[in-house]
């Protein structure tokens, strides 16, 4: 019994690990479904932790950053929510709507992220408009502390915020691939989506309530690097400048100098294909 149990436990360990290896190999076999060139704005390499030396933790993994400030209510509507599996039969302004939508749990689906496309442009224009409004106001009156903070944050976001914006969702990644065929601009990744409900007042002060979806997070946001990639990145890190942003966090000043090629394989799981440091843009 003891020998049998020991062997059974070892066999289980072997099978579980073989399953992981096979899944990993399958994902990277064949042509990647997406190969996107990103900058340090979209791929985070960890926080600089030493004030004396521009050092970071050993960069064994990087983190995919996507723009969470974009407004998804314009495209992630009730039709898409229902296609994913949310029950949206109750009207957004019905009396029982709050109870109905509050009990909805997040669902697993696939998100489409677009790199430097119309969604990012729209967000950039909107942010520039907000900056202009605040600067105009600053010329007339003194800004409050919170307005001043907002202005700094908007300016910072314009230069540092990720240009990877969510533009679509769906349960069938193949279908999403057909809808967004440009493999160098669109990433399809497993994600967790949730329902949101917001009330606004229009010009006539009439309250309108809207139901829309939001991407909570990508299921794989942290991407492990190989030993060689890790060593190369470690060499590059001292060449990056460090500053303190408007939130008080220390960050790399010119993340655009780093260029990453991120690939997504057959299981829609990522890996870093390559990266380089652009001296000329310094």
């Amino acid at each position, binding site marked *: *019994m*003891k020998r*049998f*149990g*020991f062997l*059974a*436990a*070892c066999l*289980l*360990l072997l099978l*579980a*690990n073989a*399953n*992981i*290896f096979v*899944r*990993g190999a399958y*994902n990277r076999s064949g042509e990647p479904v997406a190969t996107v060139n990103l900058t340090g704005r979209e791929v985070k390499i960890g926080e600089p932790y030493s004030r004396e030396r521009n050092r970071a*933790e*050993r960069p*064994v*993994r990087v983190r995919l950053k996507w723009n969470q400030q974009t407004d998804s209510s314009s495209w992630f509507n009730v039709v898409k929510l229902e296609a*994913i*599996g949310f029950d949206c039969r109750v009207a957004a302004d019905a009396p029982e709507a709050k*109870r109905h939508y*509050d*009990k909805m*749990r*997040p*669902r*697993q689906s696939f998100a489409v992220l677009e790199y430097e496309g119309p969604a990012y442009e729209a967000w950039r224009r909107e942010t520039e408009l907000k900056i202009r409004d605040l600067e105009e106001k600053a010329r007339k009156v003194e800004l409050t502390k919170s307005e001043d903070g907002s202005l700094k944050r908007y300016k910072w976001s314009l230069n540092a915020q990720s240009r990877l914006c969510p533009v679509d969702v769906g349960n069938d990644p193949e279908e999403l691939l057909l809808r967004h065929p440009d493999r160098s601009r669109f990433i399809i990744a*497993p994600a*967790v989506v949730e329902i949101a409900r917001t009330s606004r007042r229009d010009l006539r002060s009439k309250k309108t309530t809207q139901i829309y979806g939001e991407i909570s997070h990508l*299921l*794989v946001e*942290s*991407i*492990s690097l*190989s*030993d060689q990639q890790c060593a190369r990145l470690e060499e590059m890190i001292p060449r990056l400048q460090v500053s303190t942003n408007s939130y008080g966090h220390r960050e790399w000043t010119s993340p655009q100098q780093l260029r990453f090629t991120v690939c997504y394989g057959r*299981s*829609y*799981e*990522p*890996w870093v294909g390559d990266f380089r440091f652009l001296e000329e843009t310094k």
Partner: protein
Amino acid sequence: MVTQGRSYKRQAQQRADRIAAFWEEMQCLEQEQALTLPEDERRVLRRHHDQILEELSRQFEVDTTKVQKQLSLGMRIASLLGALSFSAAVLLFAYHFWDRFSTAARVLILLTAPVAGLVAVARVTMRERTLYCAPMLGMLAFTAFGLNLALFRELFNLTPSATGLLALCIFAFIVAYTYNLRFVLIAGIISFLCYLSATFGAARGVYWLSLGQRPEDFILAGPVIVALSLAPHRQYPGFPRVYRVSGLIAVFLAMLFLASYGDLSYLSYLSWSTKPVEYFYQAASFVVSGATICLGVRWRLQDVVVTGNVFFILFLYTRFFAWWWPWMPAYLFFFIVGVITVGLLFYLKWLRRFTLEQPT
């Protein structure tokens, strides 16, 4: 066989307890002058019992005195704490130093750690007659396997899934049944409960890591765990109790949550508003815990009676707090709680007498 040895050890401990009780009673009878054994017979009997105790102690490491029993209990508690501490140490070590190792070293550590844990358990169980170190090593092997799955997934950037919980659960059950380890069995039961909850959710399209957001999953899974105690466990005398208590705790904890947070219930999908759901579970928690106590008394299962009692009282005090604390003066609240506690004492006293009157 370890498992058979454990079964025999239980019988040996019962015999040693009977002998100790016999001599204690004999001393009382002699003091009351109700029975006095002739000195030579007494000496022969004492020598016979001493020989038996020595043999039992040598073969099965049974506790022959009260001090030994207390020390054994202390060692079991230390073993539990050690198991938890070592598992936490392994987890924290992995997260603290992990990034400093090369990929090859990481793969090697992840592959060998669970196997090393298993080998250590196998070797220790061969040497230990009473398992104090084996549960610690069993938990270490379980933690190492959990880390193996989590960190390999991270290494290959794979999407997390509930299947890992199933693999963990099977691993824990194999180790627990092979080496008769109750701590590892508890870890396996927790993994099983989480897996079931995650799978129920995933079947409805809900993100699997939202497990626990529908506590009724555990109300469904709890009886399955309790039912496992009915399977024959001749060589694993402690396991049925673990199944019963774990299953009941799963059900009662879920009810405790639902009695306060009705919006987490599936019933809220059936156009029930939150309050009726909460009232339903408040009533159900008393009915179920009361029924558990009755069944425990009827089937003479002390662990079931204790679990039922603990949760009955917990449900009661939670309700008192929810109903009265916000508006009642504090002195009145504690006075009423005190009165009810006295009432509970009388009830427990009646229950105790009732159990004593039951034929053994």
